[in-house]
């Protein structure tokens, strides 16, 4: 992929959605390019989750258009959305792990579903599934929980299992909805490290919804070093992750800020500043 002209991976054009009287998204436009990292801040109820669900085609916008990998998905039927969704990994805010299945079956689900998909094209041979599942769980350091059910895991472990399921078929676009919400700081940092590792080892385009300022700081300023297996700080002003990381701030369904970290730090908008204030 030539670096000079990164392709558009996720593009919103004047997207609005209303539920009854609530305007959940109001004329939102943005463009996420291949290889980019997009951090989305916003107060609770500002429309962040709704935005991700529209990107996945789980909700239909009331007006505006949505493009995924350059394809207009706004009016696509559910059946035609399936092949596009298979290129998007998603970690839901509430986890979304299937309670009735073991962790192993949960993580295998995207692979097994790809075999029996309506288009009938087998993508992953059945005998490779188990290996891929183990590999995905090793990636999130959860190998020992294969036969456990989601209810038997802690909140942090469930998130990790969710990341394993989302990344198991190596989708080029990853969406994370509040991956650190409700976790203690240590666990939250561990989850962020995994997200950075997934981004840098698999070269995925990522959109991360969060309300923690540090999450954005980590994503923008650290990268995963495959040799040492650890995160390391990137130098600013290079063409590293920092340059490819952009921020958005949602407020009451509107996109109130879009820009780089420097622009975010300089912004004088009182609402945007709220997401910089909590700098512990």
């Amino acid at each position: 992929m030539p670096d000079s002209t990164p392709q558009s991976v996720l593009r919103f054009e004047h997207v609005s959605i209303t539920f009854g009287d609530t305007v959940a998204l109001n004329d939102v436009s943005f463009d996420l390019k291949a290889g980019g990292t997009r951090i989305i801040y916003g107060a609770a109820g500002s429309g962040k989750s709704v935005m991700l669900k529209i990107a996945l085609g789980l909700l239909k916008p009331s007006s505006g258009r949505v493009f995924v990998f350059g394809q207009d998905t706004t009016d696509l039927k559910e059946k035609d959305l399936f092949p596009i969704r298979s290129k998007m990994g998603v970690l839901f805010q509430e986890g979304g792990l299937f309670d009735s299945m073991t962790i192993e079956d949960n993580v295998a689900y995207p692979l097994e579903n790809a075999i029996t998909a309506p288009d009938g094209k087998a993508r992953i041979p059945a005998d490779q599934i188990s290996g891929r599942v183990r590999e995905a769980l090793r990636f999130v350091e959860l190998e020992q929980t294969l036969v456990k059910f989601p209810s038997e895991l802690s909140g942090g472990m469930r998130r990790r299992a969710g990341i394993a399921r989302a990344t198991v078929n190596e989708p080029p676009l990853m969406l994370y909805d509040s991956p650190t919400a409700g976790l203690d700081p240590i666990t939250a940092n561990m989850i962020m490290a995994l997200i950075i590792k997934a981004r840098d080892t698999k070269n995925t385009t990522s959109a991360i919804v969060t309300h923690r300022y540090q999450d954005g700081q980590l994503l923008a300023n650290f990268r995963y070093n495959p040799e040492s297996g650890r995160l390391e700080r990137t130098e600013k002003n290079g063409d590293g992750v920092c340059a490819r990381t952009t921020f958005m701030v949602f407020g009451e369904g509107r996109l109130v800020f879009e820009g780089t970290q420097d622009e975010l730090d300089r912004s004088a908008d009182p609402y945007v500043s709220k997401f910089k204030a909590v700098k512990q």
Partner: protein
Amino acid sequence: MLDFFKGPILALQDFFFLTGRALRNIFRSPHYTDDILLQMDIIGVGSLPIVILTGGFSGAVMALQMSRALATYGATGQVGQIVAITLVRELGPVLSALLVAGRSGSGMASELGSMKVTEQIDAMRALGTDPIQKLVTPRLLATAIMLPLLTIISDLVGLAGGFLVSSITLNTTASQYWNTAYRALVWNDLAQGLLKPFVFGIVIALVGCFYGLRTSGGTQGVGLATTKAVVVASVWIFVFTFFITQIFVNQQ
């Protein structure tokens, strides 16, 4: 005024949409056979004990009530006939359906409801599975198949309960009881006795899944969905039994 009707009409529209999709999926692949069998086990085998208990006692109560009334006409020999007709036509189907609505309909609403609020339904769609195909159609098929079978068992156990009571209180002989019971039933009775649970099964599954999939507002919403599913399904059972009976009465 218009706003007052808007909610229910939109809900009805959603319900028919779900019904259409669930029925259409019966003839489409992928078929989740494992899920159908699992649901048949949960709904059918799981409901067996309570259906047997209530069926047996309802037959016994019928016999007890009728034995006094029939004694005044000196027609105690007819007790088998009366128990058979009321059980097969009405009591068996309706009681079994109410039990299954309370047990399985509520289960469907709460299971699908908690899947909805924990975003498992969204995850399913995101991973390329149609939740109606995977969740609703198996429950619909399983209930529509198992409820008639449960009703047959309930009818038989009810008849046996009736016999037990009438043989003790009225000294009815076995051949007398079972003969009148057997001769009382015509095809018409059996047809409506089986059509009813089939229809009720469809109603219970669709209503349970419908309210489950509509759940919003966290865990509180799940409780609300469960209650609604049972109440609405129970009411529809009575409405449908009235209309089905109406059709069969006219045919006689």
